């Protein structure tokens, strides 16, 4: 979206060719940039020693350094860039470049500045608040950075430390609705700017207070406690505040390494991710809006640790009902008219739109392609791209009548994030059978060994609850 911002001066009225090309090119860039921005937390060290040294030399030493780097809309632009990637996909190289550069322009806090934040929040400097404290951050995080530490009672933890003063700055920037709307109109012209704007303001606003994230992560960790393959690091309660969040440290490997594992392992990891996304949605009524590879850690046997709950949206049963109806009518009942009615009920489709039901089904079926019929299916990168392409296809007779109501804006990330990850893994499974285990209207028996282990876990959960 920084990218989007980039467009501001370069926009033109329709009908003038020269800039049209520039503008189209810019849009493409912002999209890539958004994806780039969304890949946090990125390890500071990935790009090698020299870069690491440079980042340390440039480290933010004072609150004024932070304000210069992230104030005046820049922090907000980065967040919007991240969110624009949920809903639009095609910004130009120039805009992508802007986002990437903006992201690169944020060095870590100096050890002294980070320690001062810890002391301000916890009442003691890090070397007294913790038994051990690593002054070198291991990753960039949402408006902050992550340090490794060991608690006084001996637990290895990840400590997320917010930049000083940033919450106030971003809160003030979020109040400039006019400028935000202009940027969103440019970043995601096909979307309803006002729906997107309120969603952006709410979600980014929540990220400013780490206690929201801690609450979401606590909820997830409690729900998945004892799960055979899904792990959510526990929040350490006494050490988590508005600007500090402490959670257990996981010792698993990153996505890049998973990609080198045998296909069998990759399929298992994919199955766990798939189960996590839809169990969270239908059972916990929560969706983590950031399903990208950087937020997953992997162990053999399909065990996946899920990180970063800064962008979780919670749903009411009433908000979920139409989604379930849509899946049921198109996948199970194969009833196009009922599918159309459920789209209209949810607000996805304008009632009485002058398009045939068959055209609607053809337009949207691609999203249900992997689950309309039983049997193993491989999710390829090509399939993932076709989903994305269809999603952003704003031409055609059907697209004009489709809109994404605000509660579901974040769910678009399923298409852009989940399927992209599964495609990257070339994952094969009987996705329909797994879905039937999870759908509340089917609740079928286990279809895989992982499903059986999960079923036993569900029984234990219920027994413990009773």
């Amino acid at each position, binding site marked *: 979206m*920084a*990218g989007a*911002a*980039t*467009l*501001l*001066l*370069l*926009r*033109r*009225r329709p009908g*003038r*060719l*020269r*800039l049209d090309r*520039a503008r189209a090119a810019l849009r493409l860039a912002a999209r890539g940039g958004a994806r780039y921005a969304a890949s946090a937390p990125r390890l500071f060290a990935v790009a090698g020693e020299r870069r690491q040294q*440079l980042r340390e*030399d*440039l480290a933010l030493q004072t609150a004024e350094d932070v304000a*210069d780097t992230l*104030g*005046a*809309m*820049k922090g907000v*632009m980065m967040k919007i860039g991240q969110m624009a990637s949920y809903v639009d996909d095609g910004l130009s190289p*120039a*805009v992508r*470049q*802007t*986002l990437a*550069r*903006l992201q*690169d*322009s944020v060095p870590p806090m100096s050890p002294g500045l980070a320690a001062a934040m810890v002391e301000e929040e916890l009442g003691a400097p890090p070397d007294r608040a913790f038994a051990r404290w690593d002054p070198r951050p291991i990753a960039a995080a949402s408006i902050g950075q992550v340090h490794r530490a060991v608690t006084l009672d001996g637990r290895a933890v990840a400590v997320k430390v917010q930049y000083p003063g940033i919450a106030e700055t971003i809160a*003030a*920037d979020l109040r*400039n609705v*006019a*400028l935000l709307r*202009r*940027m969103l*109109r*440019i970043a995601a012209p096909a979307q309803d700017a006002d729906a997107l704007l309120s969603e952006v303001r709410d979600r980014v606003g929540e990220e400013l207070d780490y206690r929201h994230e801690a609450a979401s992560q606590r909820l997830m960790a409690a729900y998945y406690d004892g799960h055979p393959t899904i792990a959510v690091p526990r929040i350490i309660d006494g050490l988590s505040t508005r600007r500090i969040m402490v959670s257990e440290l996981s010792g698993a490997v990153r996505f890049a390494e998973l990609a080198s594992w045998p296909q069998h392992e990759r399929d298992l990891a994919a199955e766990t991710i798939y189960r996590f996304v839809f169990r969270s949605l239908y059972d916990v009524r929560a969706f983590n809006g950031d399903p990208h590879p950087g937020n997953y850690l992997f162990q053999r046997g399909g065990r996946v640790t899920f990180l970063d709950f800064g962008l979780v949206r919670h749903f009411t049963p009433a908000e979920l009902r139409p989604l379930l109806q849509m899946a049921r009518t198109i996948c199970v009942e194969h009833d196009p008219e009922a599918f159309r009615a459920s789209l209209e009920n949810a607000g996805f489709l304008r009632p009485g739109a002058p398009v045939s039901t068959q055209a609607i089904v053809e337009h949207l079926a691609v999203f249900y392609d992997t689950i309309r019929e039983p049997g193993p299916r491989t999710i390829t990168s090509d399939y993932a791209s076709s989903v994305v392409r269809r999603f952003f296809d704003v031409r055609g007779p059907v697209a004009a009548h489709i809109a994404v109501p605000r509660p579901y804006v974040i769910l678009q990330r399923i298409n852009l994030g989940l399927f992209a990850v599964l495609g990257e893994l070339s994952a094969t499974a009987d996705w329909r059978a797994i879905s039937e285990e999870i759908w509340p209207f089917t609740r079928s028996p286990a279809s895989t060994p992982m499903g059986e282990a999960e079923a036993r876990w569900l029984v234990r959960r219920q027994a413990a609850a009773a």
Partner: protein
Amino acid sequence: MTADLYATATGLIERSAAAYAAGVPEGARDNGFFGPASVTWRVNAGLASPVAGLRSLLMQALHPLAMAGVDQHSGWRRDPVGRLAATSAYLATITFGERAEAVRAAARVRRIHDRVRGTDAVTGQPYAAGDPGLLLWVHAALVDSVVAAASLVGTALAAGDSNSYVAEMVAAAELIGVPRPLVPSSVPELDLYIASVRPGLRCTPAAAGSMACLLDPPGLDEDTAEIWQDIRDAAVAALPRWARQMYGYSAPPLTPGRRTEIRQSLGVLDAMVLGQPGVLEARQRITLRMRAARPA
């Protein structure tokens, strides 16, 4: 015309950014005329630069002979972006470049100035761009504008820092050909100098026309126009009242809310510049040198 202006807007960011990146040396052998501990380097890193630039053009244009020289000789109407980018490149080079580079850049500009001579149609006076009197006005307008813009929408300079900045910039005036004793070296001297020039200033038709075009470029779309309006409002608000009156602009003082909005727009603009190749690296080079020069 409009399509050209759009092409212009596109090029402005790219070419100014390229000029800036090229002006910041890698592996510099000396600290140039200012150096990493200077106030000059610090104010150049601020967000307010576009406002300072626009305000200084507005001030400079009020001198009939300076305006006539630009109007009759410079190719700015044909290539306004090229003209602005050339100025950005020059300022970046003399600010951050090595001494030898700065001297070379100044010599190039002085050679061009040598050819710019003529008679102003409005006052009937002859002019020469190399005239130290004209160059001093252009210099003073820039220095005054940097201080005014920083205090209005940037990080205001402490009184001592403003004086230091004016004193440091004497070197820039000297480079372009103003004898050192003529150049104000403190804020009070600068104010006195500007007051002494004021009786000869006026808004000629050339100034009115070109500044109107600069403040309200025809053909901008709605979103662009709104961002531009923020920069323009700040530049006009930062002018001395008498200068606004000469142009006939009315500008209520900026409310705190409006200043915040302007800063936010400047941040967006700054992000655009940052997105251009080489700019982040150039800024990092400067930051590293400024850090190293920070008192421990």
